């Protein structure tokens, strides 16, 4: 449907007049005008900070699902996995002491200590030979008291620690001896 030029012209003139009569104020101008009307003495820095801290704010995290799961798994691991002995070297508690293990195993690929302090579990306390001179060593914080242990060389050979100074038959009938270690409590040293 088309209107004729004769009907449209007066309407356009009317609209132009209306626009001319309206003051040119943008949305930003109007917001700033509202802000300026707030009482100035309430807006001290400390008070503004206090209000910001006490008012509720919408906080939005945007995480990828993979990161969400990784974060959850990490937190669960920290909460669930107990920090059992032996611990890496740190300051021992009153009922703990530092044990040092040294062995001479030239040519060995790996040496670890397995004993009553780690439920005779493998892979928990490895000795190191950083300078490849055949002397392997490790230190760990252990509970004070008696511990029995052996070295496991290259993952398969069980070896009594000849430097231990204390030994006990392991009781399995093959004449094998465990080394005995007595850890003194740090508090009594």
């Amino acid at each position, binding site marked *: 449907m088309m209107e004729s030029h004769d009907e449209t012209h007066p309407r356009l003139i009317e609209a132009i007049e209306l626009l001319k009569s309206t003051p040119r104020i943008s949305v930003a101008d109007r917001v700033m005008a509202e802000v300026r009307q707030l009482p100035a003495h309430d807006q001290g820095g400390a008070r503004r900070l206090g209000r910001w801290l006490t008012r509720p704010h919408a906080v*939005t995290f945007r995480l990828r699902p993979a990161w969400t799961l990784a974060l959850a798994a990490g937190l669960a691991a920290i909460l669930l996995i107990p920090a059992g002995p032996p611990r890496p070297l740190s300051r021992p508690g009153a009922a703990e002491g530092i044990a040092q293990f040294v062995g001479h195993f030239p040519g060995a690929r790996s040496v670890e200590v397995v004993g009553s302090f780690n439920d*005779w579990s493998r892979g928990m306390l490895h000795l190191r030979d950083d300078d490849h001179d055949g002397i392997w060593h490790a230190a760990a914080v252990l509970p004070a008291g008696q511990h029995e242990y052996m070295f496991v060389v290259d993952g398969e050979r069980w070896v009594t620690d000849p430097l231990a100074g204390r030994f006990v038959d392991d*009781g399995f009938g093959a004449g094998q001896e465990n080394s005995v270690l007595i850890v003194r409590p740090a508090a009594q040293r």
Partner: protein
Amino acid sequence: MTRRLVVLALIVAAPLAAQQGTPLPAPPRLAGRVPAAALPAIDSLIAAAVAESLPSEPLVQKALEGSAKGVPADRLVNGVRRGLLQLREARILVGRAVPGQPPLEGHVAAVAAALARGLPPAIVERLLTAAPDEPPAPALHAAADLVAHGFNSDSAADLLVEAHSKGLKGVRLLDVAMAADHELQRHGGGTPSDALARVRAMLPNVPPVPPTAVTRRGPKGS
């Protein structure tokens, strides 16, 4: 997004609730590590120890040790059974040395360890009687150290009882054994009796073992 946060909160909260609320059953320490052929017999030996109020941890450790070493099932069971017999003998000794009190599990375990190291029962009983209210492990280890290094067991017990009467207690008794061994090595031509006499003359001022050099032949925990 909200759903993801809820899932995350649930995942994190579940372990916390498990830690703070009803305790979870203890992890089965033997199942999966001890050979199936040995497990029933070992379970019954441990149950016997518990029923007799003996410490069961040494038996659990022995079972884990044998399993880790790949000991055959029959020898593994025999090793644990031997441990139970030593615990029974240890409890008799503790009961005789400290009458009128129920034997403490820690004392029984320490005495069993000393017997396993070869310390004669009579020496064990004498040392227990000399200090009935103290943890016996240091004195027993000191005596076992001395005997293992060639000292007469009665003379070793004499020295330790005297050291205790002069105020040396706990791990300081290990220093006494260490001093005797040093004296023996330092005077190569001397007899063990001479070495013990020299240490007796030092009492109670035997030198403490340095914190990081504590065995006779190399650095150790003690």
